């Protein structure tokens, strides 16, 4: 007979273990990208080997800034994302407000929204 306390502990451990497994699956690819970026020769090396950081180097980052023209692409990304956010807010906030005002039998709000 399992005591209620032991049962409760078992449930806590099971839930946290399952969540932990999903966390590993979720985070492993981005973690590997970070590990690869911090190793000198990342391609065709075992992921576990990369995580050991045997060839640790920040050279890839300096290369990205110097040879990869990072700031040029970064500026483009900032311009595009900022414009998209501004346009969306300027257009969609009044639109959502307007939709709440047009209560009419002939015009259905959902249809305009879709």
């Amino acid at each position: 007979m399992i005591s209620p306390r032991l049962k409760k502990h078992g449930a806590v451990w099971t839930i946290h273990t399952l969540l932990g497994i999903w966390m590993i699956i979720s985070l492993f690819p981005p973690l590997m990208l970070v590990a690869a970026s911090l190793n000198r020769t990342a391609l065709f090396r075992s992921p576990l080997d990369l995580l050991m950081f045997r060839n640790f180097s920040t050279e890839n980052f300096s290369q990205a800034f110097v040879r990869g023209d990072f700031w040029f692409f970064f500026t483009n990304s900032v311009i595009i994302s900022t414009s998209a956010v501004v346009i969306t807010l300027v257009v969609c906030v009044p639109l959502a407000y307007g939709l709440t005002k047009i209560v009419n039998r002939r015009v259905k709000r959902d249809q305009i929204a879709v």
Partner: protein
Amino acid sequence: MARHRDKFTRGWWFILPGLILMTIVVGTPLLMGFYYSLHDVFLYSFNDQVFVGLDNYRRALEDPLYINALQITAIFTVGCVVTSVGLGILIAFLLNARQVRFRAMWVALFLIPFVMTPVVGGIAWRFFIWQQEFGVVNQVLAFFGGDKPYWLLDRETALLATIITNSWHLTPLAILVFYAALTTIPDELHEAGRVDGAGPFQALWYIVLPMLRPHILFVSIIIITSAFREFDMIWALTGGGPGRSTSVLSIFAYNRGIANQDMGMANTIAFTMFIIMAVVAWLYITLYRRRVGENT
């Protein structure tokens, strides 16, 4: 009455800029796409456009490669929806358990795959997870004495690998929506279930799932539309290969339009995708309204 009409007119003034913008950025490409789908248009002789009516649609429907791409897209979409929604419900249910600590931290960590660019996620999975020699999956299989398959180079496994990778990207969205929905289920329902002797699985089946039904519909439609037009992650993983085993409609349209320079056919494929998605969206809205109607 006059006041009501005034309010109505004012509402339209607020809607108008958005409506105009949507007409320009959505309506124009759509109409142009439809126009090109009715013509023979080739990139190398763009100005020599010949009107062919619905001939491109007939050619597409008679093309076994189009049918193959349609089947692969359907399998890919269904696979992604089932996996993402199933995992989303399970993980959200676990997250919502009373015993879980640091919930905000778990939710934040689980969201990371969703905010990653699909191309970057695809590259990470291709080189670190599915890679034949050093990939984690094969290393785990080898540890247990299994074979080391070429996941992305084998016609039998490539589609499965792309479905799993895309589900990894989309599951966080499902987790977020289902977790938010689960927090709104009154504790009394769970208490009542416990009093009646319901275990965790019975609670999931008889309490949680019925309460989540409208949210499942919502998440499903988002994932269907996202998976149906998926391009970048599949392109980063397999490029549509090996052979045509992962060539979904968007990749097929791209190949026709860019590699074959047949923009008429590419637009035809894209327009059929739009029609299929419009039908799915209409079905969703109908189902959703019926569900809301039942609940109110």
